[in-house]
């Protein structure tokens, strides 16, 4: 949060120390006004209920000074770096290295993912974090179908995540159904809700669709909070059964897996099991998506993103095509939700806020719309980066927000900026993302 990036947008930029100093002074002045009351004065509800305040001019001066210094540094960097254009942001050799890396990056990541529980067997924290990352990878891949392929902007994706989680939680706690029965049910229910929402609203275009999906996400959350007799309201659902290995529980009972195998019980077994479970689910999502892209339905999704009118002229039923994309994405969200519920053992509406939708959307867009590898990398970066700031809890969202802004400015097209064709005659060559449309929906 600083005013340092106040940059002239024209090509010819003056340089010289006077100019830099002038810019820095303006930035500092802007910062002084912005922060004068918000930082310079601290308010708090007093003991008698009234408001009291005290001044923090030291902090204010420090912030303004930081902006001043930061502005000078940024301006110097900019002049050293030269005019900003695409080729300069990512230098040619780096680009070449990246495209080389791109070829073995995906397989390497996959192998690494399989080895994570082996390497980090004794580090519970890393295992937990990996499970979290994989959950978001799966969510990102699911939303990618809707946003990245079909070009439909969905700001309420978390609703389907919630539907999946609550489906499993309620079916399991009320009817005693097992995880493996509930998992497909959760997916189907989420897809059903996707169709239910999608059917009336998918003829809306662009930002109208965005706000309706956002509203739908909020409706689901509010209903969960308020329908206390069913969902437990803000207190959530607890005591959700843990998953079993096809009926064999992973606990230290006599029927448990450890006892059956005759090995010593360790709670890590369950974590490792959960890890491979979400890895398998995520890979299934990936496999299905890659498969679908090469089928007529997937091509129709992408065609829809490129030009809806042309699709209609080619006899493609736009509504059902959108619905299938919406339902497919919702189904993956629901499956991930069921996993989330069984992993946590407890769910509450707090886990299904708009922030989650925004986070998943950020993962998809940062990944490079439509790119499976990009989404995985973005999930790793975002969730991993987010975790790094766990220690600075109160600044976490601040840093996260700033990172989002900076990443968008750095790479508006996402990390992986090209599209792979789904079929080819001679050459399988990537298509620059500058040509790829982003859809109107």
């Amino acid at each position, binding site marked *: 949060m600083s005013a340092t990036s106040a940059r002239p947008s024209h090509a010819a930029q003056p340089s010289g120390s006077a100019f830099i100093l002038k810019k820095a002074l303006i930035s500092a002045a802007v910062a002084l006004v912005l922060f004068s009351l918000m930082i310079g004065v601290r308010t708090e509800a007093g003991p008698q209920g009234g408001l009291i305040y005290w001044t923090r001019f030291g902090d204010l001066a420090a912030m303004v000074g930081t902006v001043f210094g930061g502005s000078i540094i940024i301006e110097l960097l900019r002049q050293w770096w030269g005019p900003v254009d695409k080729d300069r942001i990512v230098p040619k050799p780096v680009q070449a290295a990246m495209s080389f890396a791109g070829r073995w990056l995906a397989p390497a990541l996959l192998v690494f993912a399989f080895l994570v529980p082996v390497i980090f067997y004794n580090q519970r924290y890393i295992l937990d974090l990996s499970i979290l990352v994989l959950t978001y990878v799966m969510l990102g891949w699911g939303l990618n179908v809707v946003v990245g392929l079909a070009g439909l902007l969905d700001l309420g994706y978390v609703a389907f995540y919630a539907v999946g989680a609550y489906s499993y939680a309620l079916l399991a706690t009320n009817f005693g159904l097992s995880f493996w029965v509930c998992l497909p049910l959760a997916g189907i229910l989420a897809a059903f809700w996707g169709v239910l929402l999608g059917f009336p609203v998918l003829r809306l275009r662009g930002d109208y669709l965005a706000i309706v999906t956002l509203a739908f996400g909020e409706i689901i959350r*509010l209903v969960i909070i308020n329908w206390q007799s069913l969902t437990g309201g803000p207190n959530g659902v607890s005591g959700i059964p843990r998953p079993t290995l096809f009926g064999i529980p992973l606990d230290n009972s006599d029927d448990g897996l450890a006892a059956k195998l005759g090995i010593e019980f360790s709670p890590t077994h369950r974590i490792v099991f959960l890890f491979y479970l979400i890895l398998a689910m995520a890979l299934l999502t990936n496999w299905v998506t890659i498969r679908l892209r090469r089928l007529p339905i997937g091509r129709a999704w992408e065609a829809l993103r490129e030009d809806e009118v042309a699709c209609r002229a080619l006899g493609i039923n736009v509504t059902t095509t959108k619905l299938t994309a919406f339902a497919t994405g919702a189904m993956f969200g629901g499956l991930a939700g069921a996993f989330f519920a069984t992993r946590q053992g407890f769910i509450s509406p707090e886990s299904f806020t708009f922030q989650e939708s925004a986070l998943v959307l950020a993962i998809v867009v940062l990944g490079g719309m439509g790119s499976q590898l990009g989404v995985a990398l973005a999930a790793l970066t975002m969730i991993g980066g987010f975790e790094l700031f766990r220690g600075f809890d109160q600044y976490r969202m601040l840093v996260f927000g700033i990172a989002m802004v900076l990443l968008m400015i750095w790479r508006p097209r996402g990390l992986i900026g090209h599209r792979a064709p789904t079929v080819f005659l001679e050459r399988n060559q990537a298509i620059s993302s500058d040509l790829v449309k982003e859809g109107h929906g």
Partner: protein
Amino acid sequence: MDYFAQQLINGLVLGSIYGLIAIGYTMVYGIVGMINFAHGDIFMIGGFIAMISFLVLVSLGLTAIPLILLIVLLVSMVITALYGWTIERIAYRPLRHSFRLAPMLSAIGMSFVLTNFSQVSQGARVKPVPPIITGGYTLHEGSEGFAVQLSNIQIVVVLATIVLLAVFTWLVSRTRLGRDMRACEQDQTMASLLGVDVDRTISMTFVIGAALAAVAGMMYLLYYGLVDFFMGFVAGIKAFTAAVLGGIGSLPGAMLGGLAIGLIETFWSAYFSVEYKDVAAFSILIVVLIFMPTGLLGRPEVEKV
């Protein structure tokens, strides 16, 4: 009947506040074509600055309430407007001709930044202020002892909204700036060829939108007597809903949508259930959009084939 009249008054007041925020959304959308997700937080910042400046002025020994309010209004409008300007400069301008989703995500990021900035700098607890504008009138004494009240603060909110709308309408329809804004809305490239400073016009749009949001924030503070760092999210979504309901890009639509959302919320709380008031507002948005895909006053999107 009396109960109904009372709810009508309450709904109109709430709707005025939503409408003021919604104008900011609709203006930015009309010109830049992006959802400014940070706008709700601009409203929150406006409320905070009004609260802090009020506190400081009172502790400096000022006692004339009208004078205090005037200063608070000016201070919060100016500082909040600068927030709007800065955010556009930092987070949106570099992305103006980029991919459509990029500025939107940048805006979501900005919204997180503002929410958290105010949480960190002012603390997470709700900040209450004592009632500043008190008193009112009893319009009608009902038979069952229920009286229709119109408080002074409600009058102030509605009057301020009407005055601002009048000024704003004049600004857009009669001034050079307004003409530039309408030109940019139609075609930015052409406008710049004809000598309109597009960068400046867009900046001014954000400045005006933020200033209106600051007024809304101050009205909220006066009306409800509290601010907190998270209030921007819900109010922002509601106001955006209002803008879409009215037909995004349409200024009268934003106000109309704001009033509609305010009334729906108030009446739903009064006659059905408080818990589901937001669900009602969002559901009506969905229903309206299904039947009128471009909102109440939105121009129908002509599909060029």
